[in-house]
């Protein structure tokens, strides 16, 4: 298997067909392991009590909402500079998945905030910047689909994605730069994580599962997009 060949849509299609079942079954398997650990093995938190269990989906969803954006930003750069069609296709397939994960992050965070902070929503830097990320994803979906010529949509959506990168460091470090109601990072910090290992395990499995779910949905959407473009080419040739 030569990985450089993957940049050709047909080769990618074949490769994706081969790994799709593994990714799909893997995501379900890890999901069940994660659910088992988060409901049966994890103890309640000393302060938050049982609502700590919401964290096991909130945090992985938040990680993915950022990671998917990084993927899209790289693809947008490649598409603008090298005019590579697969980069556009990946970017277009990722946007709805990123939007869904951001939505999940916002909703679960809000549900967690009610019993913990005593409010559904506050306009602090972390929550606001995550909401802006959601709007950027929605904007990407609207822009990329609002032109008759899909190439134009791809180009403008890529520009939007690159401009929107500014938001990423703001989300990541907002809790350190400003006084926010949202707590600072527990795992992604330089010294050891401040989460007990019994609570880290479900988080870890859920994160793997969410990543595989993202991959499996992305593969489906990419293959759909390749077929749609083939149809466009056939139509324009006649």
């Amino acid at each position, binding site marked *: 298997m030569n990985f450089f060949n993957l940049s050709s849509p047909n080769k990618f299609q074949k490769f994706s067909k081969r790994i799709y079942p593994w990714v799909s079954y893997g995501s379900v398997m890890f999901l069940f392991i994660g659910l088992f650990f988060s409901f049966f093995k994890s*103890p309640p938190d*000393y302060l938050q009590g049982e609502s700590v269990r919401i964290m096991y989906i909130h945090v992985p969803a938040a990680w993915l909402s950022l990671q998917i954006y990084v993927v899209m930003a790289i693809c947008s750069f490649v598409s*603008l*500079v090298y005019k590579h069609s697969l980069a556009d296709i990946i970017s277009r397939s990722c946007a709805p998945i990123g939007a869904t994960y951001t939505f999940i992050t916002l909703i679960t965070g809000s549900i967690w905030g009610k019993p913990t902070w005593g*409010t559904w929503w*506050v306009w602090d830097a972390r929550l606001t910047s995550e909401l802006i990320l959601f709007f950027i994803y929605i904007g990407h979906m609207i822009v990329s689909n609002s032109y008759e010529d899909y190439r134009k949509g791809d180009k403008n959506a890529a520009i939007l994605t690159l401009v929107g990168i500014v938001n990423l460091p703001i989300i990541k470090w907002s809790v350190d730069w400003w*006084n926010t109601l949202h*707590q600072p990072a527990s795992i992604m910090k330089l010294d050891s994580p401040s989460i007990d290992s019994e609570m880290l395990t479900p988080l870890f499995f859920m994160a793997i599962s969410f990543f595989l779910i993202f991959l499996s949905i992305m593969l489906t959407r990419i293959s759909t997009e390749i077929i749609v473009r083939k149809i466009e080419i056939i139509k324009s040739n006649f």
Partner: protein
Amino acid sequence: MKAKNKRLVLITSLLATFFLGCILLFLNLRENLIYFYSPTEINESKTSKTEKIRVGGMVSKGSVKRELIMRDNEKLEKINFEITDFENSVQVNYIGILPDLFKEEQGVVVEGIFKNQIFLASKVLAKHDENYMPPEIKKMQLLKDNNDGS
């Protein structure tokens, strides 16, 4: 230069300029994005004391006093407590229901106005820290701290 390389230089330099602009803008706006102030910042009166503001810090140990009052034929709880950042502190008055996580020596953010050096809160939010652990381990930690202290 090939068209491809031209685009690479153009897009990279455009992005670099854009992000530099954003960083400059951000450094200037940073102060305005503060969600709450610490008691020390209040003391140095970085803020106007007539507007609605938010103050955040720890609830001082042993400072919470509760009393029941009657207002509009309704029994309400009036809570007095002190918020501290271990340098300065602010006295807070609040009537209403506290969030479950409100405890002494835990973080809170209160929203309201100052009146005669006392902060009248209209909203109290509990702030959670970045530590997650089971209750047994917390108990053990507390025991250990007590032993070290004595």
